[in-house]
């Protein structure tokens, strides 16, 4: 077993274990923690982050980064809200399409113009945010309540929130693509060693193109859910989503240098960060402590700190072991 594989396995099992412990803690301590209402509302809310993190996970596995996902989601929500009077599916398509447009530009900047992903997606973050504000005229855009657009975010299907279904389908597709298609294997190959991938004749640029394109589309989809869940397209939402997504991906054991990663562990990372906030709310409700919502980001930051230090420790110890053999 190679060092990187070991780290990623420890990372993925670690995050699943931590998630289980947190859920057990919540179940033992709070009456309604595993109640239907709490579970569905946590899933409904976090499905947006899950979609964004899935795209980010693929981009990071190629060794890149996508900083534009937050404002792309905002743009998607605005476009979807503007298109929602034409019908639920039109709204959905328009929001995803807007996200795909941003993804397309990112992909061209990174693969054709060879601009560093960090800079290219940073620029697109500004551009998408500016476009969203222009389209929305600097205010939130109410969605149409007649066309059934809001049911995408607010209704249930088989007793389960529709956004959660969307996220589940996306993750299953992502898992299959990563593990059972040549493109998915290519994603990891590009992240592991791009030059070697090219020399082996794999279409490195096409793979990179696809991940940025998909990341944009997923962010647009998250924007659609945002708009229909809260009844409005919100041009200033999505600030900091990209960093939340990166944190979730890192907590899930995916290395930011690329080449290693897991779709399932990313989902666990999203849920872990989301449920942490949920537990904090319950704890406040108990009245023993009263932590303001501001503690949420401090605790998330500390959590990320612990994870990255653990990852660093493991990887440095691993490298020594490799040298021995």
């Amino acid at each position: 077993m190679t060092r990187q594989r070991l780290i990623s396995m420890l990372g993925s099992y670690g995050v699943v274990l931590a998630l289980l412990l947190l859920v057990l803690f919540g179940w033992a301590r709070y009456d309604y923690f595993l109640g239907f209402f709490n579970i569905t509302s946590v899933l409904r809310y976090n499905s947006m982050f899950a979609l964004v993190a899935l795209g980010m996970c693929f981009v990071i596995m190629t060794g890149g980064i996508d900083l534009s996902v937050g404002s792309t989601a905002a743009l998607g929500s605005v476009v979807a809200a503007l298109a929602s009077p034409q019908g639920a599916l039109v709204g959905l398509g328009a929001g995803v399409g807007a996200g795909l447009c941003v993804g397309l530009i990112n992909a061209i900047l990174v693969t054709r113009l060879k601009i560093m992903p960090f800079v290219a997606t940073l620029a697109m973050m500004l551009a998408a945010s500016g476009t969203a504000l222009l389209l929305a005229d600097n205010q939130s855009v109410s969605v149409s309540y007649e066309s059934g657009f809001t049911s995408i975010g607010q209704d249930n299907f088989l007793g389960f929130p529709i956004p959660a279904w969307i996220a589940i389908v996306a993750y299953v597709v992502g898992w299959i693509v990563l593990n059972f298609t040549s493109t998915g294997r290519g994603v990891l190959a590009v992240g592991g060693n791009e030059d070697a991938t090219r020399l082996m004749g794999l279409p490195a640029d096409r793979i990179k193109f696809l991940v940025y394109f998909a990341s944009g589309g997923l962010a647009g989809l998250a924007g659609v859910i945002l708009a229909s869940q809260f009844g409005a397209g919100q041009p200033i939402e999505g600030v900091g989503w990209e960093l939340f997504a990166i944190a979730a991906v890192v907590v899930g054991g995916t290395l930011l240098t690329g080449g290693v990663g897991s779709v399932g562990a990313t989902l666990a990372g999203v849920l872990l960060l989301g449920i942490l906030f949920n537990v904090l709310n319950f704890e406040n409700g108990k009245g023993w402590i009263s932590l303001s919502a501001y503690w949420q980001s401090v605790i998330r930051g500390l959590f990320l700190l612990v994870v990255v230090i653990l990852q660093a420790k493991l990887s440095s110890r691993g490298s020594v072991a490799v040298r021995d053999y």
Partner: protein
Amino acid sequence: MTDTARQQRISRPFDPFDFMARYGTLIALALLILFNFAFTRNFATMQTLNVNLTQVCTIVIVAVGMTLVIATGGIDLSVGSLMAISGALAPMIFLGKIVPIDNVALAVAAAMIIAVGVAGLFGLFNGWLIARFRIQPIVATLVLFIAGRGIAQVLTNGNLQTFRVPQFQWIGLGRLFGIPVQVVLMVLLVIAAAWMLKRTVFGRQILAIGGNERAAELSGIAVSRVKLVVYTISGLCAGIAGLVVIAINSSSDANLVGMGMELDAIAAVAVGGTLLSGGKATIIGTLLGAMTIQLVRYTLLANGVPDAAALVVKAGIIVLAVWIQQHGRRA
């Protein structure tokens, strides 16, 4: 330079990309100023100069630290949050919320030193994570990006702190020989950093690490120490910028101070011609880059283009600048 090298240099044909990579920012700035003289009403006034300079100051101060960090091949995402921390701490101290201090001058001095010092310590913490654990800078500084603003909000309980303390607000509203104090501060910082990068051993070590970290380490450079210092400097710069912002506003809102500053600073550095992969940096370029972005925004706003469209234009400028520089290097 040997003769052959000189000959090669002379015989090299004129390359527009290389030329633009070297002087593009300067030319863009000059063109913008000319355009404004011609088309923007009331451009050639002291007030315009003042507005633009005071707005660009905080970005430049942060971007100076960011340039040094990027020169080592790193990045600092935490600067905006550190501004919020320093901006939250200072009023708590000079308003006597922690320990009552009778002497106003003493309170203000303590507030400035402690607030900037704490931001520096957080910068040191970033450097420690990066040097000691070899965590990628983007992840290591992400920790404080997330937690830092939370710390500032917890400190102030999310409340707006308003104040009217002329002794403190001097750094945002005062004037020295007719020049706004924060502009003087900015110029001093730019000169000091540019001198350090060009003329001191430490400056050369920063660039060596950014160029090839392994080679730098093997040639005896204390890589960890240099990184610690560089991230500390970035934290200190962010701390100073935080004070300037709250002094101008006469209030400190932990939710807003320094919001998005990391992106503005990185954009200024990139447009200024510093390589984002490290190894080549220019402080003066960063100053010009920040001014160009500011002037573009001002030009658009003064001519009736909405702020949101200015964002899109800014994105275009960043991409264009980086693209030209990459071509210039390859040629």
